[in-house]
């Protein structure tokens, strides 16, 4: 008896849903109420799934004209903010071509040495940049930073800014990569990578001391976490 009643209720509910949600189109097929993603032009749409009162405007009605001029640009993390120094140089860097940055190299090298001077002065000794763990001296390192400021992205193999586990370097930038520690090590780590690592009375300049905390880098596309909402 209970089962019989249950079936009746189910049939009634299903029938109600059918009549509320479905309609006949011109071909006599039963379709779901028109939507903006059903692949056909229906309702008051002006094209397939576009225009009308409910959908996005059709592409040929949207204005994509005009000229857009560069205001900001970024390749590797921190290059402009770390090495350009003066505000006017930062602005110039952002409005420059990647392929036309030779003039920034001298400024970058000067900035790099200034940072070493800060700690040399504090310690009462002379400290200059030392060829880094990649074997790049100051002119070459700052040339790479100034003139080749793009992320190198390998289509085949591991992509990482630097993975100390595999030794792979400069093949991309993942969300998890500790680009700050990598950059600091290249700037202050010297040939060993540990020159100013806070040990043996040295300043700690090769790590900022923070990791990614509770961030989750294992998510599917778009790979980034939902916003913090608190």
């Amino acid at each position, binding site marked *: 008896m209970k089962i019989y009643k249950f079936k009746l209720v189910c049939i009634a509910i299903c029938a109600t849903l059918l009549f509320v949600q479905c309609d006949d189109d011109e071909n006599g097929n039963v379709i779901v109420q028109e939507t903006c993603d059903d692949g056909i032009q229906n309702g008051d749409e002006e094209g397939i799934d576009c225009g009308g009162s409910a959908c996005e405007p059709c592409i040929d009605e949207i204005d994509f004209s005009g000229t857009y001029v560069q205001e900001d640009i970024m390749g590797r993390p921190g290059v402009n*903010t770390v090495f350009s120094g003066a505000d006017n140089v930062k602005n110039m860097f952002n409005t420059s071509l990647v392929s036309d940055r030779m003039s920034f190299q001298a400024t970058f090298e000067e900035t790099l040495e200034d940072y070493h001077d800060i700690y040399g002065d504090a310690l009462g000794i002379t400290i200059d940049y030392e060829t880094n763990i990649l074997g790049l001296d100051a002119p070459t390192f700052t040339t790479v930073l100034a003139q080749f400021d793009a992320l190198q992205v390998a289509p085949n193999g591991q992509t990482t800014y630097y993975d100390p586990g595999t030794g792979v370097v400069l093949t991309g930038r993942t969300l998890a990569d500790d680009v700050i520690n990598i950059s600091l090590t290249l700037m202050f780590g010297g040939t060993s990578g540990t020159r100013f690592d806070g040990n043996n009375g040295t300043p700690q300049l090769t790590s900022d001391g923070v990791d990614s905390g509770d961030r989750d880098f294992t998510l599917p596309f778009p790979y980034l*976490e939902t916003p913090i909402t608190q």
Partner: protein
Amino acid sequence: MKKTNLFAAIGGACVLALSIVFVAADHIDAPAVAGTTTDIADLYAFEGDNPNNTVLIATLQGPLTPGTVTENAAFDEDVLIEFNIDNTGDFVEDLVIQAIKRGDSMYFFGPAQPAQTGLSSEIATFAGYTAVKISTTDDVQTATNNGMSFFAGPRRDAFYFDFNRFNEVVSGSAAPDGFFPPGTADDFFDELNVLAVAVEVPNSMLGSAPPHVGELVGLTGLPAAYNVWVSAKRKQ
């Protein structure tokens, strides 16, 4: 208001740090773009879950405090976000993937050879496009088309960095100690958000990669690699 306060706080920190101030990866990197809708925060480029794909992510307008500042943050219809891919090794873009907001959607064009390279761009309307509804804090929208995936909307900032101590380090006020040890150091970006644009694209659409630029300075053994950068361009 919170964003204003945060910005004021950052500005205050900048004053304290005198002339040498670093602000994050590219967040608020220069006076002319700081606090504007063209201000790029970060660029990521990495192999997708599908190893035949590359993921390009640009974040902008960071940092955004949680709550109303994040909820009210919006892409600008006058700002073209452009991923640039150099696949010949001359640091001139051979392909672009462009993203621009119209209505409540982000329209993506490319990858396509741009009509012109350099500081000025036009939208590559001749190339195929895909529109994705811009996500909100609690409504995630993605679109897929022709093997590509697309997203635009607010996300948690993936960037981590003891920003405040960094300013002290480079201004000299942290000398001679330098950075704090783990546990004492503080990740400034831990609870902050950004606006993000993400594209996942099959490598087959990006052409062959050129020899790695590191070879020019004597770095050997590096794999062939595209040169990739992101630009934000404003309509004139």
